[in-house]
């Protein structure tokens, strides 16, 4: 093992140096900006986690598993998983092994940035020692892995259906430049190392290739141009990286520690939100997943395009996309990076200026509060049932729920027998947080006055906001699906099972993805009939299309979404569609070809 050049330099390393310093500088400035834009409390919290051993371990593990191995993608699609992890992990190993070689054989050169990258050009006879030949073997091995990933990537670009994607994003110009330069890097590296293999040494890949080339190429004149091309491809990739989707590589490495620290989106463009936007790899998985994209409509309103528009600053489109979304959260559920599309949109809605803002501070809730205080729930605990606006509109759910409560012998009373106030969730979704807080304060007054120990809700929209935004420390907030399942399990509700009854459960967005409740309603349904599953279910269930999340979607635009959700639910041909959300129920009833019932109604009939 010896060095070929005393000065250890050749001009062809210059493009690489330009690229690496540009991209490192850009990312450093970006990182400082993002951290500086965080609210003070968040920043302190984040910086503290960086020195806490538990979080350091979590961060290292998550970055390794997500950024290099792409575990989530593996679970979703093996081919895409292999493609991404082979390129990411393979490239990472090439860099690490390159540095290892330099540290082992020429430690005084480690301070040169370019040396580990172009190691094979600067040294000779590496394979004559055992560690040298082993490292050369590993380098060839990982280069082969990366090349296999690149091959898959090229196939995917021309036939995306082979890897199981229906629709993908249209690439921007910079994305294309980045993509082609990325494709070029590794074949060029292979060529360059092969041409030099008779001097520097190589392994199972480079030495045979060198031999083959030497059979018909009579001289070494092509060696330097190839190294130049390799360096230039690296330079092009790194110089365009900040303006392409490949920015997700560095951005995600900061996103993961911030998410682990529990930082939330507070502004649609600054701090954590900008990090989420830059972490979007523009893969387009959210396009197929989005319930709005049925029949090829609204494809350009998926989260991936919101991120792109936020990066470009296209205000008109940002507003349009933000207002249209159903906030069902499916894009986040399928996203490999976990970009919080709905939260980005709500933050954007919250920035909007209004000439007129509602004011609920004048509402007098004392009559309602005194009514519940003197009711059957009394001061000594009991269940307070809040039907909410949507359940008031579907009185059958309210009747079934109260009937079940009576059958189980639960001491209960209604919070809104003659209609009450809204829970505040629709205002939150519209970005009008301050007004929602007023309603929350009013409702809290009533709940506190009742002295209940359980707040029962039959609407997941209410349930989510009561759970997350209300300071109800000693009051248990529970959705009726969970409450009734507990009553069935404890034997207080006796169910008569009807074997011919085929039921399918529709996971409402707010209950499933919103609150993580999937199993309890299914267990309850299994007690009354045969439970079948929809095509897409659990975290990937399809929004009914009636969501209050969307501000601008018209009834006509929502109809195909509802039909699509129904088609998905009826794949296994169930007799009845069961859901746990009055809004989903009201939406489905209009379009369904078979009965749609609330969970409480089905249970009440069989009790």
């Amino acid at each position, binding site marked *: 093992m010896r060095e070929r050049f005393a000065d250890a330099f050749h001009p062809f390393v210059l493009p690489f140096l330009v690229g690496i310093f540009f991209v490192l500088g850009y990312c450093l400035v970006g990182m400082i900006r993002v951290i500086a834009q965080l609210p003070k409390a968040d920043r302190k919290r984040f910086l503290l986690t960086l020195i806490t051993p538990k979080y350091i371990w979590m961060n290292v593990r998550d970055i390794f598993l997500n950024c290099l191995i792409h575990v989530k993608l593996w679970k979703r699609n093996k081919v895409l998983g292999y493609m991404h992890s082979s390129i990411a992990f393979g490239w990472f190993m090439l860099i690490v092994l390159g540095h290892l070689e330099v540290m082992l054989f020429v430690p005084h050169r480690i301070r040169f940035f370019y040396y580990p990258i172009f190691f094979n050009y600067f040294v000779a006879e590496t394979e004559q020692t055992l560690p040298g030949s082993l490292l050369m073997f590993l380098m060839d091995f990982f280069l082969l892995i990366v090349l296999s990933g690149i091959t898959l990537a090229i196939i995917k670009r021309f036939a995306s259906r082979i890897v199981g994607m229906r629709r993908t994003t249209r690439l921007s110009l910079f994305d294309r430049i980045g993509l082609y330069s990325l494709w070029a890097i590794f074949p060029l590296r292979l060529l360059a190392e092969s041409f030099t293999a008779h001097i520097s040494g190589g392994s199972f890949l480079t030495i045979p290739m060198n031999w083959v080339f030497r059979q018909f190429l009579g001289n070494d004149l092509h060696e330097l141009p190839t190294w130049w091309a390799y360096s230039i491809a690296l330079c092009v990739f790194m110089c365009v990286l900040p303006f392409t989707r490949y920015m997700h590589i560095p951005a995600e490495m900061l996103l993961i520690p911030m998410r682990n620290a529990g930082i939330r989106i507070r502004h649609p463009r600054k701090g954590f939100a900008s990090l989420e936007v830059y972490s979007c790899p523009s893969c387009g998985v959210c396009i197929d997943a989005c319930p709005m994209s049925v029949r090829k409509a609204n494809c350009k309103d998926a989260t991936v395009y919101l991120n792109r528009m936020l990066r470009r600053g296209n205000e008109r489109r940002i507003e349009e996309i933000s207002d249209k979304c159903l906030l069902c959260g499916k894009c986040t559920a399928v996203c490999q990076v976990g970009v919080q599309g709905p939260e980005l949109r709500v933050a954007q809605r919250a920035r*909007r*200026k*209004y*000439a*007129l*803002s*509602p*004011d*609920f501070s004048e*509402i*007098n809730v004392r009559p309602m509060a005194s009514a519940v205080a003197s009711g059957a729930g009394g001061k000594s605990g009991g269940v307070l049932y809040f039907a909410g*606006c*949507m359940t*008031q*509109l579907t009185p059958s759910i309210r009747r079934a729920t109260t009937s079940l409560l009576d059958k189980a012998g639960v001491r209960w009373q209604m919070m809104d027998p*003659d*209609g*009450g*106030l*809204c829970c*505040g969730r*629709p*205002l939150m*979704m*519209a970005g*009008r947080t301050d007004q929602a807080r007023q*309603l929350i304060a009013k409702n809290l007054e009533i709940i506190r006055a009742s002295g209940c120990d359980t707040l029962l809700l039959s609407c997941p929209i209410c349930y989510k906001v009561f759970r997350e935004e209300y300071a109800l420390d000693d009051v248990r907030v529970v959705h009726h699906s969970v409450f009734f399942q507990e009553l069935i399990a404890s034997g207080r509700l006796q169910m008569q099972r009807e074997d011919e009854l085929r039921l399918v459960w529709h996971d409402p967005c707010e209950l499933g993805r919103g609150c993580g409740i999937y199993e309890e309603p299914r267990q309850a349904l299994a007690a009354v009939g045969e439970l079948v599953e929809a095509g897409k279910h659990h975290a990937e269930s399809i929004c009914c299309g*009636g969501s*209050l999340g969307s*501000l*601008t*979607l*018209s*009834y*006509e635009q929502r109809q195909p979404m509802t039909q699509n959700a129904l088609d998905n639910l009826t794949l296994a041909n169930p007799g009845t569609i069961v859901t746990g959300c009055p*809004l989903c129920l*009201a939406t489905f009833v209009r379009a369904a070809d078979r009965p749609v019932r609330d969970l409480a109604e089905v249970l009440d009939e069989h009790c």
Partner: protein
Amino acid sequence: MDFGFKLSPSSAVNLDTVDLARFDKLTSLVPDALTCIGCGSCSATCTAAPWSGMSVRKVLLGLQRGRDEEVDKMLSACMLCGKCTMVCPRGINTRHLILTLCRLNQKGEVVR
């Protein structure tokens, strides 16, 4: 002369003096507003109606009759719960209508 009844001048609407700028802007932004048949389903279901008299039907009517104060009072009671949207037989997106109206000032300009 006393006929036993009289015209109340306070509630008489002079359509010539009504400024329709806000209504016109609204219908250009939310054309569906024009399809309202005034059936009153929204009034019947409104969560805010018991304590504010809110009704989308009356909002649309009030806008065309220059009853701006009444309209603003009703709009500032809306909790966006979406019941009116659910029951509207014309499928009008009433929440979009209300939010759009809240963005307009008295001259019918979208505030930025």
